[in-house]
């Protein structure tokens, strides 16, 4: 080992994946994960920096060099526990974090183009721990006698629930859908994040004493005031995500064959429509599918469409590949699978046939103009460049916004002009005493790890509030 320190090893260990020709015929996970040998080999490359830059790139402050050092010693289970000291969902984050923009981007070896594959290592040890049946329950603090309601069971809510339970509070999670997990179960497809992994995390959180009540839409089935005044909850965490779909507002969006990405993915992931008729929920995908958008959601939708049998699956994006917000790895996967990318075009109308089904997507060509507030060059339509794409299914994946149901029924909760809940960055405190919020509902559609990070902060602040009464 000593010798290796001299020269840098820039050979990132690849992670095996299912063959593209095979994988577009199934919903099994695409990435197959490292073997023990691969994990150790990749861990050997790490410089175990004294001042690790990688950690600065991780919103959950995962102790990266420490866990990697444990992998080198083949102490895989200990490595998993080291990660869990700051991140409750390593099997999930190791799979879906945009590592190339976070921990791996900051890694010193990134300057040489070969950052340590931190995400792959994280995923490996988390899976190893689970496979060995070695998931350990942390010590739970003595009962505080306080009750915490967590609304929404996405990564933010799950983190708050786990942490508050460990701190000795009684926790009930209220979830609107029939299954806990948030976007992890209804949005992100099986081939990227197998649902058994989410179920495993939920079971673990249950084992900490957390209760789950599904089929409860807070704001309708019960209000926050009811929970606090009638049901004895001392604190509430709102982690309801930003789940309302956005449509473009162009003609033809109510035609048959037009989906929001949320609908398309929910049918498939939560309701298992790909197993119809064994499962009762149907889904329809035509021969030629256009997915509008360039983010992770668009990639998930277009790759799902391929797996459901679409002959042509297009991405329609108004900027260029460089501006696409989706993870690099997922864009590559989509390309390998045969997705056709159409850049610098924007839909202006969906065209229907005499029976109300989609038969074409009218688009206009764009060019990049001056940079906008976000620093990205703004796409501007080229007059007269309209043309019609021959498609029979259109999936809108252009973003989501806040669902107003809680805000409408909790008048003393401050929201910003976009409808997101206003919360303190450090403590997740809202304008209402005893109520905290985090994840997508305070920041707009973001990432799993940011929701986890908010959950961590909120749990600490909730604990402090419950023990001191200070607001």
């Amino acid at each position, binding site marked *: 080992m000593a010798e290796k320190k001299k020269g840098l090893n820039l050979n990132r260990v690849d992670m095996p994946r299912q063959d593209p020709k095979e994988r577009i015929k199934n919903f099994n996970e695409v990435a197959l994960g490292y073997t023990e040998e691969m994990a150790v080999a990749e861990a050997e490359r790490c410089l175990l920096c004294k001042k690790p830059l990688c950690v600065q790139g991780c919103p959950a402050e995962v102790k990266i060099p420490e866990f990697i050092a444990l992998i080198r010693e083949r102490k895989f289970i200990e490595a998993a526990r080291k990660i869990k000291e700051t991140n409750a969902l390593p099997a999930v984050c190791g799979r879906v974090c945009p590592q190339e923009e976070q921990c791996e981007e900051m890694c010193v070896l990134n300057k040489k183009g070969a950052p340590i594959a931190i995400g792959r290592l994280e995923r490996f040890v988390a899976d190893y721990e689970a496979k060995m049946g070695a998931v350990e329950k942390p010590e739970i603090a003595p009962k505080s006698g306080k009750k915490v309601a967590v609304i929404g069971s996405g990564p933010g809510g799950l983190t708050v629930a786990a942490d508050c339970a460990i701190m000795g509070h009684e926790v009930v999670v209220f979830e*609107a*859908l*029939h299954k806990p997990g948030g976007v992890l179960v209804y949005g992100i497809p099986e081939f990227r994040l197998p649902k058994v992994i989410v179920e495993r995390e939920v079971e673990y959180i249950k084992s900490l004493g957390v209760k789950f009540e*599904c*089929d*409860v*839409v807070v704001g*309708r*089935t*019960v209000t926050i005031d009811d929970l606090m005044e009638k049901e004895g909850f001392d604190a509430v965490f709102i982690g309801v995500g930003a*789940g*309302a*779909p956005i*449509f473009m*507002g162009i003609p033809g*969006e*109510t035609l*048959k*064959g037009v*989906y*929001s990405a*949320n*609908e398309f993915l*929910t*049918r498939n992931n939560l*309701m*298992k429509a790909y197993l*119809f*008729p*064994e*499962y*009762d*929920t*149907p889904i*329809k995908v035509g021969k030629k599918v256009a997915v509008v958008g360039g983010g992770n959601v668009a990639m998930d939708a277009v790759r799902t469409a391929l797996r459901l049998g679409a002959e042509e699956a297009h991405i329609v994006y108004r900027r260029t590949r460089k501006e696409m917000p989706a993870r690099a790895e997922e864009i590559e996967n989509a390309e390998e699978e045969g997705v056709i990318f159409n850049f610098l075009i924007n839909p202006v109308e969906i065209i229907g046939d005499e*029976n*109300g089904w989609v038969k074409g997507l009218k688009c206009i060509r764009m060019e990049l103009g001056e940079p906008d507030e976000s620093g990205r060059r703004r796409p501007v339509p080229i007059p007269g460049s309209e043309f019609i794409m021959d498609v029979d299914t259109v999936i809108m994946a252009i973003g989501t916004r806040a*669902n107003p*149901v809680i805000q409408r029924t909790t008048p003393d909760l401050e929201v910003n002009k976009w409808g997101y809940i206003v919360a303190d960055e450090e403590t997740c405190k809202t304008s209402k005493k005893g109520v905290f919020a985090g994840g997508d509902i305070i920041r707009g559609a973001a990432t799993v790890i940011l929701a986890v990070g908010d959950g961590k902060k909120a749990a600490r602040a909730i604990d402090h509030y419950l023990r001191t009464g200070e607001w």
Partner: protein
Amino acid sequence: MFKIVEKKDWHPTICEMWVEAPRVARKHRPGQFVIIRIHEKGERIPLTVVDKKPEEGLIRIIFQKVGKTTWELGTFKPGDYIADVVGPLGQPTHIEKFGTVVGVGGGVGIAPLYPILKGMKEAGNRLITILGARSKDLLILEDEVRAISEEVIVTTDDGSYGKKGLVTDALKELIESGEKIDQVVAIGPGIMMKFVVKTLEPYKIPCIVSLNAMMLDGTGMCGVCRITVGDEVKFVCVDGPEFDGYKVNFDELMSRLTVYREEEQQALERFKNAHPEIFAGVE
């Protein structure tokens, strides 16, 4: 899990159940509905809460067996459990004292109509109700509707009970008899609601309709329930289910309900083949 405590068959194709759903029973207001999923492999379907007993934590649902899910639910017995019942969803009906309110219910549309009429009655309105069914044995809730209405007019397509004809015929007659109508509430198949509005148009009588759009989550998350109302696209599950009938694009509503026609038929056929006994003697 939500326990079925009572069941009644109005007809081989129409079924009523009282289900334990205490949170829903406590919060429900007229016009609201639930989404149910009958078992682990089930789909999510919307059904109106027809009535409730908050003290006992019970809600009442009435459904017509039209496809795989409703036929299968029809085989559930008291003591069985429905996997999921979530609600109450949707905006409650805007109830106020209008004066004379005419309720128009077609088929199982009478089920969602009844709680609204009850609310209207409690608010001090005078009620006249027109109930339509294909034939006498498919007519539901007649006694309960009679108990709150000043006058009830029944129409059947085949003339087996009440007047032979459509609800719109009876409505037109009522208007032409000089009755002063302040508000109409019409619930039934899309085509019925469309023609009720057409009938009222010359007289400019306001009309609320409740839309039976396709739904998935019922919370505003998927958008499958979207319908053009006026010049806006609305989500029926959160903005509705009730809208100003004059503004609804009924053709679009009916068209969107056919998206999964083929798959629905396939699912029902498969279920029929697996359980022929359930369908024995039903046309």
